[in-house]
């Protein structure tokens, strides 16, 4: 990795400023918080997947000593809202969820809430609430939910479909006519959970004057504020959402509001005490999940591998409310086969279907994971059938640097270009390092333990949401220069574990000319002072928030130089800052420290010293405090490729992932340690998604069978490959901070098809539905 830009802090393996705290106990989690007089809230959850609530008797619960308040549907606003945070406040998605309703639509849906003096009492009280249900027909299978005569699940949608998009271009019929071969396959993905480690929890504190303060393990202070204001009819400016120092993981789950937060506020309003509402792990598992989908892909190709036509049909299981389901379905196609390779004749149709399963949430790589599994598995099938090289096939159909951005082009043609785009190198370098071309023909290795290598690529992804309809993309930052020569950075971006604290400090330090440890992240912030930005999601932080940080830092730097010029009686253009010292270029003896400059701006105009009376300049006085709030210029793509070597035990069907090689063009790497960490974490989630994680439910009652870590199988350190090779191709993105682009999601988008293709290479069997379990492999091998 070269350092073409000659950066001093950006590009280094700066240690995380928050790491010391986290290895000595971890003080900053909202989970640690207690407030004086705090009560504990708990929700009663539905036993049935679809039922009308005929009556709720809370009398026994009310009598339990320590119970302070109980809420049912009649005690809370009946206003419907859209729970997801990513939509613009002014067009915020389908409003079909209520805090508490008289109909329940999935097993585990909240129907009442209790506040009590201890958690044990609250849990006891919940058990004493008596509910009379009238069961209604329920649908766990998407196809059943849209059959003729199916019962309507959601008030807003008669036919249990909440979105049926049709997007097309070119001439599909002609495209297929031109093809020498047509491939049509259906790939299906399943329900998995994000498994953030810090439980979903909040503490709401409503004061007598109507103001509300809320602490929450959330990925978005503004979304939480906006939704609470809307649901509870409280002015936005009367709600303070305290920004957490950092949270213990989110991965997208925490980019929506649940019933817990409004209920906590109402309980606090009624009792006059702060109310803490936290999920048990069993409850966390059923908050939201990756949207299960069936993707049918019909692709026309010529003998030479040119793609002539693409027809994509996606059906998605949203659960009973739209939530993130329609979004995920759109991205599956529009971040998948509809755009990722060049093809003029294409059509996407979809059905976002409502069922009585758990709610669809956002999970890292939303929709893209499902789309990539289909697209990249099918490419493998095409190449195997037509005896084409998988790398050359992809390159033949690939976009090029300078092309219009195919994803944003769907909505705003010509608005953005692929400025930095080194997709080819990702494929070639990844292939070379992994030994991909040395792989054996599929299923040809001898012995019962068979090895294989597979690959998959994601040619396009996003760095934030510029260009997408109804999804805001802007960031802000506040930089304050302190009298001790440090800079305080205040940003709305929440560090969910990926290292945003570190990245932003590095960007600010680089821009300001300070040493890495001279930028301090401000942890004491709230929605009251912070500039607006969307959630920490969509691989946006480095690119979008990073740009805002750089901008604010740049302004602060200008001001520092102005003051320094005044103090040194020089021209500010002749000055530079290095490691906290401001020099006249070429004359290091003429210098001031940033500390001295900041002290001067905050000190008296007239100062007495033993020798003289010093008078400064009035225009120099005042804290150096700069803010920026702006949208980034573009939505650069971050192509990648993953190569996976597996070993399949064909007696048991077990798959071991031996080695992973991953090549990614993320522009300038701000912090190599963090970047590698993102990839390594994504490999764990990718292996889990592909081979072992699976949210499963009782098919009669809808009760979750896998709501604990014994039954929900997540990879431990033992199941991980011994080597994960990260290759970062550092294109320089002109619109990115120091050339950087996004990173967070792409490494999780590619593992599933890479592993599936590796399993095929090892065994000769193709599995098109996830997870790829030992049973599926043995069945395909006709051993079961």
């Amino acid at each position, binding site marked *: 990795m070269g350092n073409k830009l000659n950066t001093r802090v950006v590009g280094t393996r700066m240690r995380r400023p928050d790491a010391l705290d986290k290895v000595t106990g971890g003080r900053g989690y909202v989970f640690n918080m207690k407030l004086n007089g705090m009560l504990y809230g708990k929700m009663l959850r539905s036993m049935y997947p679809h039922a009308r609530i005929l009556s709720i008797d809370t009398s026994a619960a009310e009598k339990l000593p320590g119970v302070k308040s109980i809420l049912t549907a009649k005690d809370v606003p009946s206003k419907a809202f859209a729970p997801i945070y990513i939509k613009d406040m002014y067009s915020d998605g389908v409003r079909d969820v209520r805090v508490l309703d008289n109909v329940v639509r999935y097993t585990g849906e909240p129907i009442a809430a209790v506040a009590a003096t201890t958690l044990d009492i609250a849990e006891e009280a919940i058990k004493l609430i008596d509910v009379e249900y009238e069961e209604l027909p329920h649908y766990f299978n998407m196809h059943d939910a849209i059959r003729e005569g199916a019962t309507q699940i959601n008030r807003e949608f008669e036919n249990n479909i909440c979105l049926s998009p049709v997007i097309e271009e070119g001439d599909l019929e002609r495209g297929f006519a031109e093809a020498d071969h047509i491939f049509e396959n259906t790939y299906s993905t399943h329900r998995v959970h994000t498994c953030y480690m810090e439980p979903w929890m909040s503490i709401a504190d409503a004061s007598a004057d109507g103001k509300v303060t809320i602490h929450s393990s959330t990925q978005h202070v503004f979304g939480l504020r906006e939704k609470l204001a809307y649901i509870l009819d409280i002015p936005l400016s009367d709600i303070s959402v305290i920004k957490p120092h950092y949270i213990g993981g989110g991965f997208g789950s925490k980019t929506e509001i649940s019933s817990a937060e409004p209920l906590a506020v109402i309980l606090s309003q009624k009792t006059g005490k702060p109310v803490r509402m936290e999920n048990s792990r069993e409850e966390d598992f059923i908050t939201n999940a990756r949207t299960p989908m069936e993707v049918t892909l019909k692709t026309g190709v010529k003998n030479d591998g040119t793609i002539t036509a693409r027809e994509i049909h996606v059906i998605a299981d949203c659960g009973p409310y739209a939530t993130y389901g329609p979004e995920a379905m759109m991205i599956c196609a529009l971040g998948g086969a509809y755009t990722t390779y060049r093809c003029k004749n294409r059509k996407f149709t979809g059905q976002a279907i409502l069922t009585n399963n758990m709610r669809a949430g956002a999970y890292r790589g939303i929709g893209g994971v499902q789309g990539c599994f289909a697209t990249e598995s099918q490419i493998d099938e095409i190449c195997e059938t037509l005896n084409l090289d998988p790398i050359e096939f992809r390159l033949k159909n690939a976009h090029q640097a300078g092309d219009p951005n195919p994803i944003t082009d769907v909505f705003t043609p010509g608005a953005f270009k692929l400025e930095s785009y080194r997709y080819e190198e990702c494929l070639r370098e990844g292939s070379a390092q992994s030994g991909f071309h040395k792989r054996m023909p599929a299923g040809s290795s001898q012995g019962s333990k068979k090895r294989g290598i597979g690959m998959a690529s994601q040619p396009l992804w996003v760095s934030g949401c510029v260009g997408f309809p109804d999804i805001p993309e802007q960031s802000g930052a506040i930089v304050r220069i302190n009298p001790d020569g440090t800079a305080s950075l205040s940003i709305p971006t929440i560090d969910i574990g990926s*290292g945003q604290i570190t990245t932003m400090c590095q960007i600010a330090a680089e821009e300001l000319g300070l040493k890495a440890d001279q930028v301090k992240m401000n942890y004491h912030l709230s929605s009251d002072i912070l500039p607006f930005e969307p959630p920490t999601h969509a691989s946006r932080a480095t690119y979008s928030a990073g740009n805002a940080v750089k901008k604010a830092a740049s302004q602060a730097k200008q001001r520092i130089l102005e003051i320094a010029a005044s103090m040194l009686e020089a021209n500010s253009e002749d000055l530079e800052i290095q490691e906290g010292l401001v020099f006249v270029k070429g004359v290091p003896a003429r210098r001031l420290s940033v500390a001295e400059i900041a002290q001067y701006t905050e000190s008296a105009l007239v100062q007495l010293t033993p020798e003289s009376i010093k008078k400064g300049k009035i225009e120099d006085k005042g804290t150096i405090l700069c803010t920026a709030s702006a949208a980034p210029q573009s939505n650069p793509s971050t192509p990648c490729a993953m190569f996976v070597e597996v070993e399949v035990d064909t007696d048991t069907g077990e798959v071991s992932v031996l080695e992973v090689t991953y090549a990614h063009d993320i522009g300038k790497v701000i912090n190599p340690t963090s970047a590698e960490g993102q990839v390594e974490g994504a490999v764990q989630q990718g292996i889990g998604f592909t081979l072992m994680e699976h949210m499963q439910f009782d098919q009669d009652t809808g009760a979750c069978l896998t709501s604990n870590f014994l039954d929900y199988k997540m990879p431990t*350190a033992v199941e991980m490959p011994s080597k994960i090779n990260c290759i970062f191709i550092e294109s320089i993105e002109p619109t990115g901070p120091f050339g950087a682009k996004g990173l967070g999601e792409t490494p999780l988008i590619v593992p599933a098809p890479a592993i599936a293709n590796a399993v095929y290479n090892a065994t000769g069997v193709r599995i098109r539905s996830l997870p790829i379990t030992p049973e599926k492999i043995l069945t395909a091998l006709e051993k079961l």
Partner: protein
Amino acid sequence: MKQLITLKVNNDQYEIAANPWETLLSVLRDQLGLNSPKRGCDAGGCGCCTVHIDGGAVYSCMMFAHSAQDCEITTVEGISKGKSLHPLQEAFIDKGAVQCGYCTSGILMSAKQYIDEGGGSEEKQIRQSLSGNLCRCTGYQKIVDAVKSVAENKIA
């Protein structure tokens, strides 16, 4: 009915009133105000609650507070000496083994038993020693690297 018990935590003695069903985890956090042992699942499935009892890693969420009397309980707060971090804590910072950090305390305690018992730098053994702890952010790679570096330094 709460009963008075005495717990010895990080070399300090505490007299606590605890109900028979209260777990060591909830007592450590809620009564002694320790941040490091964390609730991740309350079921011995994730390891975020791992502490030491007499030098051995245990799931504090699965242990009744009453069962922990007459034992030496050690949490992450007790493994550093004043401002001097334990080599594992240093290594975790140095190698980038901490992302969201929620699993970190539990993993440090598991790794500490491994190192205290002379665990070697062989990667497979290190991975096995971490099998009772889940992490969702790091993929374990830099955690393994950190433990390995401490094991290697001990041998050296």
